[in-house]
C-alpha cells in the first residue's frame, strides 16, 4: 500500500507539484488523469524514486521510502517510450531485473518464457528492439517490469506512441495481466477513456494538484471542480442563481432564462451564484414539451455531426447559447439517424435527476 503525503516538487520558483496526497491500496489500480504539463508524470517519478520531492513523504506499507534510490524500491516502471535496451534481446531485456537479483539462469529462463506467453509474445525472445512494432515493444516493457514480481507497477503514459486499435488491445491485456497478478498499480494518462477502462479509482490532476480522487462514476457524475467536470467527458455549463433550495430539491434560475431543477440536497442558499452543467448524452431531443418532472429548454438545431455510433448536435438557444447534444444512432429511418432537420425548432429535455451543480461564487456559502 502506497501513501503519498503532501508531496511537492519545484523547478526554480515554479511548483510543478504541490500538496499532493494520495493512497493506493493493495492490488488497487489508480490512474492519475490530467492534461499535459499537469505534473502527473512528476508525481509518478517521485513515487519511482527517479525524482526527489522538495516536500512531503512517500510511504510503502508504513515505511518511509521518500529518499530511497530507485534501485532499492523494488517497483516496476513502464516508460512512455518503452526504453527497451537496444543491445539486448527481448528475453535478455525481460530477464534483466532477475539477472540483477542474481536469479539462477534456469529460473530466469522459465519466468521469461512465462512472461512472454502472458503478454502474447511467445517465441519472440530472440528478437531485438528494432525488429518489433510499437505494440510489441510495449508488451516487452510490461513483461520486463513485472518479471521480478514488483511490489508496485508504475506506468507513464504507456500507450502514447501506438495507433488507436493497438491501444485498445494493449489496454485490455494490461488490465487482465494486472488483475491476474494482483499487483498494486499506479498509471499516468491524459486519455479519459483509458482511465475509465482501467482504473479502480481516478485521481484528476491539474496544475500540480489532485482535484478529485474517486471512482470513475463519481468523477463523472459528481465532479467537485469545474476542471474535473470539463476534463472528464464533455459538458454544457450554464451560469445561474439558486432560486429555491430544499432538503431534496434545488432549483436554479439560468442566466439565459428558464428554470431547471435538480433532485438532491445542495449546500447553496437562494441567491447564490452557481454553475449548472448537463452532459451531452443526458439530453434528449423532442418536438414535444417536457413533462412536469423533466427539465427542458427550447432551441434551434444549428449543426449536425455524424460520429458513427452517435450523432452530435449543436443547438442554438434563445439568447445565443450553444448546447452540445449527443444522441446514440440506434434508430435509423429514411437514411437519417434522427428525424430532425437543421434549423428545426426543438425541445431539449433531460431528467431532474441529472445535472451537476458547482459553486460559482467567491468565498464561503453558508
Amino acid at each position, binding site marked *: 500500500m502506497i501513501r503519498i503525503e503532501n508531496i511537492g516538487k519545484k523547478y526554480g520558483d515554479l511548483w510543478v507539484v504541490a500538496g499532493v496526497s494520495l493512497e493506493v491500496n493493495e492490488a488497487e489500480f489508480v490512474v492519475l488523469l490530467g492534461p499535459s504539463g499537469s505534473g502527473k508524470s512528476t508525481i509518478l517519478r517521485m513515487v*519511482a*524514486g*527517479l525524482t526527489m520531492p522538495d516536500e512531503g513523504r512517500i510511504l510503502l506499507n508504513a515505511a518511509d521510502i521518500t529518499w530511497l*534510490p*530507485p*534501485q*532499492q*524500491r*523494488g*517497483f*516496476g*516502471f513502464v*516508460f512512455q*517510450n518503452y*526504453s527497451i*535496451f*537496444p*543491445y*539486448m534481446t527481448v528475453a535478455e531485456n525481460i530477464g*534483466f*531485473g532477475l539477472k*540483477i*537479483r542474481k536469479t539462477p539462469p534456469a529460473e530466469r529462463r522459465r519466468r521469461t518464457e512465462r512472461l512472454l506467453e502472458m503478454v502474447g509474445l511467445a517465441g519472440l525472445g530472440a528478437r531485438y*528492439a*528494432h525488429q518489433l512494432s510499437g505494440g510489441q515493444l510495449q508488451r516487452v516493457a510490461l513483461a*520486463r*517490469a513485472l518479471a*521480478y514480481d514488483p511490489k508496485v507497477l*508504475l506506468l507513464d503514459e504507456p500507450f502514447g506512441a501506438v495507433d488507436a486499435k493497438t491501444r485498445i488491445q494493449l489496454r485490455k491485456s494490461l488490465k487482465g495481466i494486472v488483475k491476474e497478478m494482483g499487483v498494486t498499480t499506479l498509471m499516468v494518462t491524459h486519455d479519459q477513456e483509458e482511465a475509465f477502462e482501467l482504473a479502480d479509482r481516478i485521481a484528476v490532476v491539474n496544475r500540480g494538484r489532485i482535484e478529485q480522487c474517486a471512482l470513475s462514476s463519481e468523477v463523472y457524475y459528481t465532479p467537485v471542480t469545474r476542471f474535473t467536470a470539463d476534463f472528464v467527458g464533455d459538458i454544457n455549463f450554464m451560469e445561474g442563481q439558486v432560486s429555491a433550495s430544499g432538503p431534496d430539491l434545488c432549483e436554479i434560475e439560468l442566466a439565459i432564462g428558464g428554470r431547471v431543477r435538480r433532485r438532491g440536497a445542495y449546500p447553496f442558499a437562494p441567491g447564490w451564484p452557481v454553475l449548472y452543467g448537463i452532459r451531452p448524452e443526458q439530453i434528449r431531443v423532442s418536438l414535444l414539451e417536457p413533462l412536469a418532472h423533466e427539465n427542458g429548454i427550447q432551441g434551434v438545431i444549428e449543426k449536425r455531426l455524424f460520429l458513427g455510433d452517435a450523432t452530435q448536435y449543436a443547438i442554438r438557444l434563445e439568447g445565443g447559447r450553444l448546447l452540445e447534444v449527443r444522441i446514440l444512432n440506434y434508430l435509423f429511418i429514411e437514411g437519417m439517424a434522427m428525424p430532425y432537420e437543421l434549423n428545426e425548432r426543438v425541445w431539449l429535455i433531460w431528467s431532474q435527476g441529472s445535472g451537476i451543480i458547482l459553486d460559482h461564487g467567491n468565498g464561503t456559502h453558508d
Partner: protein
Amino acid sequence: MNSELTYGKGMSRLLPAGFLVLVMLPLLLLPLASVFIYALKGGLGDFAAALITKDALFALRFSLLIALATAAVNTVLGAYAAYVLSKTRFPGREQLGIVLNLPVAIPNVVVGTSLLLLWGPIGLFGELLAPLGIQPMFTPIAVLLAHIFVTLPYMVGAVRPVLDDLETSYEEAAYTLGASRWQTFLHVVFPAMRGGLITGALLTFAHSLGEFGATVMVSGNLRLRTQTAPLYIYTQFESGNIATANAVAAVLAILSFLLFSIIIGMASRSRARRARS
C-alpha cells in the same frame, strides 16, 4: 536516406563523377600513384631491400606501437571524457568540451611546441624536473604524449554523439529494474558506446600513424629511438634517398587506406542499422 540526383541517360549520368575524378587526378590520385611507381621502380627486390633496413623497420615498428598505445590510452581516456561531457551536468561543460576539441583546430606543430614549452629542458615543468634527472621530451614517452594530445578529439568525437543519442530513460529504466550505476554502465551504456569506441580507436590509430607536426617537435627525430615512420620518410627524402623514403611511404599509404576503408565500412553499416530501426 541518401538523396540521389541521377537524372539523364547513358554517359551523361557519369559526368559529375567523371569531372570529380578529373579534378582529383593531379591533386590526389596521380601523386599517390607516383609513390608506388617510384617505390617499385627498381623492382620488387629493391623495394623489399629498402624496407628491410634497420632504420626503416624500426620506424615502422615504432609507429605501429605508438599508434596502438595511443589507441589504447584514448579508448579509456576518450571514453571517460565523452561520458563526463555527455552524461553529467556542471558549470562550464560546454567550454570544457570546446577545450578538449582544440587539438583539431591548432596546428599539430603548435601542439608539439606547446608540449616542449612545458616539459622540455627550458620548460615550466621541465626546469623543475631536470635537476632530478628526469627529461620527458625527446623520448618515446614524449611521442606518445603528443599523439594522445592530438588524437583525443577524434575519440571523443566518435563516442560523444553515441552517448548523446542514448536517452536518459535507458539508464533510468535500468535503475528501476534494480541496477546500480556501475551495472547500468556495464550493461546499458557500454554496449551502446562499443561501436563509437571501435570507430574512435581506428581513427586514433590511423591519425597516429600519420602524425608528423607534433612528433617532429617533441621527438627530436632520434634515429632508432624516437623516429616514427613519417619522420623517417621526411628525413630520407631530405637526404636524397628517394627510393627508401617511398618504400616506407607506400607501406604507410596501404595501411592507412586499409584502415580508413574499414572505418568507412563500419560507419555506413551502422548508418544502415540506424535507418532500419
